[in-house]
């Protein structure tokens, strides 16, 4: 029972990490706070629904399709919403709330609002770890998260464009003086951000109810993680994601899902009171 819960926590933490990293990254570069991040998650799930469940593509191919499609949505959001509202964080955030409405309606009107779309699980059966049973679909999430996070780490710390992105997050003015194009960097950040949300949605599609409103629950969790981690810190987001994964899973097992959400929010409030800059956040100069 305990091992089962721990295993579930790790899986939940991995999903949260994939989602929250994108959100933290976009916020780090030029303070782009994306309220429609949950809807990007939803879009990723619908890409899998269309390609895998409707068109009959193999599941991994459908998941890989979600990455560029939702990444492109991220780029479009940057170009049409975040760039014009760059001087005001709140305006961009509220405008993406409008975008969330639009995406919900478009998806709902295209594929129906009522019943959830069922995406059959491609990998039946469960894995046995010390007596804990985890469905293969869930097991799959963990290596995906590790792969994605290490790819991101490699990109940010070893590739020139990634270093430029970090420089831009630290000090946009200075980065520009070094010849880094801010507009290209914000676009890149939103592409990665969208792609990660899309990937998470795609992986979760077979085990998460796929509805136009599935982003609602995700966005609150994602923002709790990002605030706890320190808004702009990617490492902080990963740490907070796993912490919250543990907290949510244990409370859900002991009590129920609503209580788990409440405890999560309470954790965030606690972090804000004790350490307003977040777990791994930098103190503002």
């Amino acid at each position: 029972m305990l091992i089962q819960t721990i295993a579930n926590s790790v899986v939940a933490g991995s999903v949260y990490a994939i989602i929250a990293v994108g959100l933290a990254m976009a916020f780090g570069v030029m303070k782009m706070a994306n309220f429609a991040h949950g809807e990007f998650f939803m879009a990723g799930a619908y890409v899998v629904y269309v390609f895998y469940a409707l068109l009959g593509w193999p599941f991994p191919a459908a998941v890989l399709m979600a990455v560029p499609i939702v990444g492109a949505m991220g780029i479009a959001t940057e170009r049409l919403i975040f760039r014009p509202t760059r001087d005001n964080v709140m305006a961009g955030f509220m405008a993406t709330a409008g975008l969330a409405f639009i995406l919900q309606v478009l998806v709902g009107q295209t594929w129906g609002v009522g019943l959830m779309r069922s995406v059959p699980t491609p990998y039946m059966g469960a894995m046995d770890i010390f007596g804990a049973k985890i469905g293969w679909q869930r097991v799959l999430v963990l290596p995906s998260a590790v792969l994605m996070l290490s790819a991101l780490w490699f990109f940010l710390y070893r590739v020139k464009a990634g270093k430029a992105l970090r420089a831009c997050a630290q000090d946009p003015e200075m980065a520009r003086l070094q010849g880094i194009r801010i507009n290209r960097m914000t676009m890149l950040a939103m592409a990665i951000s969208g792609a990660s949300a899309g990937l998470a949605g795609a992986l979760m599609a077979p085990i998460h109810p796929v509805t136009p409103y599935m982003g609602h629950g995700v966005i609150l969790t994602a923002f709790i993680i990002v605030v706890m981690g320190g808004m702009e810190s990617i490492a902080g987001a990963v740490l907070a994601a796993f912490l919250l994964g543990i907290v949510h899973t244990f409370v859900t097992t002991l009590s129920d899902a609503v209580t788990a959400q409440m405890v999560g929010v309470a954790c965030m409030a606690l972090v804000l009171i004790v350490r307003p800059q977040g777990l791994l956040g930098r103190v503002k100069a």
Partner: protein
Amino acid sequence: MIAILALASAAPFLARAYSVEVLILFMINLILVCSYRIPTMTGDWSLSHVVMMGVGAYATALLSKWWDLSILLTVPLSAVVAALVGFILVTPLIRTRGFGFFIASFALGEFVRLCWVKFRDPFGGPRGMIGIPSGELGGIDFFEPVPYYFFVLVFAFASLLVMYRIDRSRIGRTFKAIYTDAELAESVGIDVPRYRALAFATGAFFAGIAGSLLAHRLGAVDPKNFDVTTMVYLIIWIVVGGTSTFWGPIFGLTVMSVVFEWSRPLLEWRPLLFGGILIFFLVFLPGGLESLFGKIRERFFARKPPAKGSPGSSAT
């Protein structure tokens, strides 16, 4: 002012029953949207204001179902409860500023809302509560739309008057000073956290009035009515109108209510329209409609601007 009041008094006799219902909701939303402007005066945009309205609604539901209190008591008491809850919530929120405040208020508001979902007793769980009496006063049953319309009108007028006085008072100017430059305000001896808490609690107080009036009208409260989707609609009203003057939010609500009624045939497509409007205003007209008046006045009625003001040079 008197003309508007006279028009508002005559309105229910000119309109059909259905329209009176719409007018009642409009008056309630009017209190809500104006109360939202109070915390925004200090620069604190909260995402939990609709939840504060919900606190008022739930307080009304409990007060009138358990103790069978008169509607004259439930409305002010619910407002006090909402103000108290607002004060409790704002205590940790004060430590954050700007965007952090926005997100943290979202999460804390959601916490309160989840309490209603979780505790079936006394809040009724995910389905909310039903059977809230519509109230009566001096033998007049407020189930009838027209008497209730006047009841709401009195409260709306009184609330707006008080909020207008707050806007003009020393406290209101202090709020604006905090928004303009918090550090400067602090250095001249303004207790910034206390005034921000005061602004939030005052906003919650009036939101509680709106929630209480809504609960009596609908006869039911549902936690889904106070979720973030409703909050986004409130933000749309206030963004369309603008927040720098007292009249901005009122104007925005009026325009968007007309759009809402007019777009009734669109049904499910309506959120798309509203989302589009929100994006349009934030990108192209961040000051809201009220800033248009300023621009028009500048262009047509202002005396000749100083010579340096060539078109496009100075953006104001």
